[in-house]
């Protein structure tokens, strides 16, 4: 596979990507390195794993990280109830050593996403989402998997990957990740798209949306993201929601009134809405996104 064919596959999956992004994805894929993607919330980090799964025709295995995530949720767990039941049933009928050995077989092993991804016969795309939300201990636990593509289960031993998964880790930079984890990954930073790219995304995802509306919304969202007073910057998904909402209301031109009525689709806190509207009413106001007249062609 070369860069242009990967790009074509991503285009087919309606993911708007430039040559730089396609090059990075291909480098990570061909070197077999995990890809660490950083960027603000809502810029399309998780989406990359999904479209890569589609583009490579692989299954997507997802591990959502959170505080307190441990190996029993991420890697494996023994089915204790089944083991106990088995002991009770076979206690007098089997050699005790044999019984003990049989208790740590595949039959009693509950696979979690990490184990599933490396035991899969066909290569998969493994998405480890929001790794920055997991604890530092979990990060350290991942190192063996990321560098050697193997995991160790004390009762069984070391399991090597049957097929090498394409691992995608995403982070919102809520906390700095360890140097050791970074070293094992290829790195990609995704900024918010510029107006041109966001218009292309709207056209790709919502082909029925009017061109004029797409440009107006993309420009307005860009202005909102530039506004320092707004804390939660609108994501790409919110841009798409906004366009859909405007379309559903039969609005083809984003004017001030339409923007005010539908601002809730793109700003999700009262403080941010107040900040956007206050900016609109300021005497030296230029474009804040909430006024709706920004970027009219």
């Amino acid at each position, binding site marked *: 596979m070369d860069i242009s064919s990967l790009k074509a596959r991503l285009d087919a999956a309606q993911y708007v990507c430039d*040559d730089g992004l396609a090059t990075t994805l291909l480098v990570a894929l061909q070197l077999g390195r995990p890809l660490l993607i950083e960027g603000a919330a809502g810029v399309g980090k998780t989406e990359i794993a999904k479209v890569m799964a589609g583009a490579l025709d692989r299954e997507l295995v997802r591990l959502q990280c959170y505080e307190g995530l441990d190996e029993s949720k991420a890697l494996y767990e023994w089915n204790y109830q089944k083991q106990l039941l088995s*002991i009770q049933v076979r206690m007098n009928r089997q050699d005790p050593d044999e019984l003990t050995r049989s208790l740590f077989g595949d039959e009693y092993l509950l696979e979690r996403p990490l184990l599933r991804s490396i035991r899969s016969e066909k290569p998969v795309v493994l998405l480890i989402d929001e790794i920055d939300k997991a*604890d530092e201990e979990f990060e350290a636990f991942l190192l063996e998997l990321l560098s050697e593509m193997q995991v160790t289960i004390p009762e069984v031993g070391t399991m090597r990957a049957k097929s090498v998964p394409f691992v995608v880790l995403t982070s919102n930079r809520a*906390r700095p990740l360890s140097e050791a984890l970074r070293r094992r990954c290829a790195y990609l*930073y995704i900024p918010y798209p510029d107006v041109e790219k966001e218009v292309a995304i709207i056209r790709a995802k919502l082909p029925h949306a009017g061109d004029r509306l797409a440009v107006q919304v993309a420009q307005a969202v860009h202005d909102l993201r530039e506004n320092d007073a707004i*804390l939660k910057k609108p994501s790409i998904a919110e841009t798409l929601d906004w366009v859909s909402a405007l379309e559903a209301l039969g609005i083809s031109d984003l004017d001030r009134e339409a923007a005010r009525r539908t601002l809730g689709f793109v700003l999700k806190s009262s403080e941010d809405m107040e900040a956007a509207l206050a900016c609109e009413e300021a005497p030296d106001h230029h474009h804040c996104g909430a006024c709706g007249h920004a970027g009219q062609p």
Partner: protein
Amino acid sequence: MSVYLEKLAEFSGLLRREGLTVGLRETEDACRLLADWNLTDRETVRCALETVYAKSREEQAAFRRAFDGFFVSVERREALRRRHEEEAQALAQRRAEAERELQVNGHPIDLREDLQEVYIRMGEEKRRELMEMLEKTRGTMDRSPDKLYSSFIRSVFMRFLLEQQMVMEDAAVGCEASDPDLALLYRDISHFKDADVPRAAALIDAISRQLDAQLSRQRQTGGHSGKLDFKRTIRRGLETGGSFYRLSYKRKRRTRRRLALLCDVSGSMLQFSEFALRFLKSMSDVSESSQIFLFSEQVHLVDPFALQNMDAFRDYVRTSGLYGRGTDLGSALEQVCRRPGALGPSTTLLILSDTKTIDIPRAARSLLEARRQAGKVLWLNPIPEGKWPYVRSIQTMSALCQMLPCSTLDELARACRKLLR
């Protein structure tokens, strides 16, 4: 091909010098890419190598600088060479000028080499300011050419240069950060603008939540005391048909430390103290109980609940008469030490101050007494660590207790982590 590889190894070396952690693996990956892909387009090569070598946004910026400097076209290389020659000439000329200018009564001023460099690299306006100052004092020096006066002039001169050096160091730090949120994390708190405060507060909340979670995890997995808890083990065994499948152990008794906070709220320290308090308050589980003392020239004991709202904190400081005053750390520490029950073996005394105080010897004596009374003394200093060698009071105080740099939110978070241990 070998020339190609040699160049790549050289480039890896250059990246290491730029501060990137480049190992053999990265160089090997880069070699594989260049060999297998047959890349010709410069932009694609840059992007591919960047994926391999740079592991963060900061490293990406450093990589791009290094790449642009290393892989240059012949024309650009020639242009760069010419520019470097011109710059070297200009620098040599400025050195010669500086040698003429840095004289008093025909004798060269005794200046360290690094300060001479600072003078040479200073802007035109700053140099003029400095020369004007020298010119103004020249007449006085001619009239009273005693040693004391000329050494005074030299010290003023050196102080000016040291300040310039600090400004230059700060400017360099500012260039490195390219992500707004990340920049905020690493920016000097004293340089925050009003517009940054809400974002900084959100960042503090996020970090404090992590610290809180870290602390609760430490307690959950804090280990057992080694003694089996028979009652709980038997009770849990009933769940598994009488088999003692999971053993329960007696838990260690948790002893939480008491915290005494001594916050400097003199003019220059208010913003830092506000952020630091916000941090410490949000870590609700850090201590059993905390006492907060605010001080400038006097000391006030504050009710921690009154400081929940940071606007109230500012109002309180402004109306209490503490704001805008000088700093008397010695007196503040003496009053805290004299207060019954304020300090004790299970208390950690946390001092938030830049160490700039009147009567340093008295402050040092009081700090020694506080160290004797409290179980632990930690000092959070908002002055960047790089500037510590230039401040005498910091050198004195850091010899007496553990001092942590807290000029940025990142450093503040690290200090709080230390506090948890």
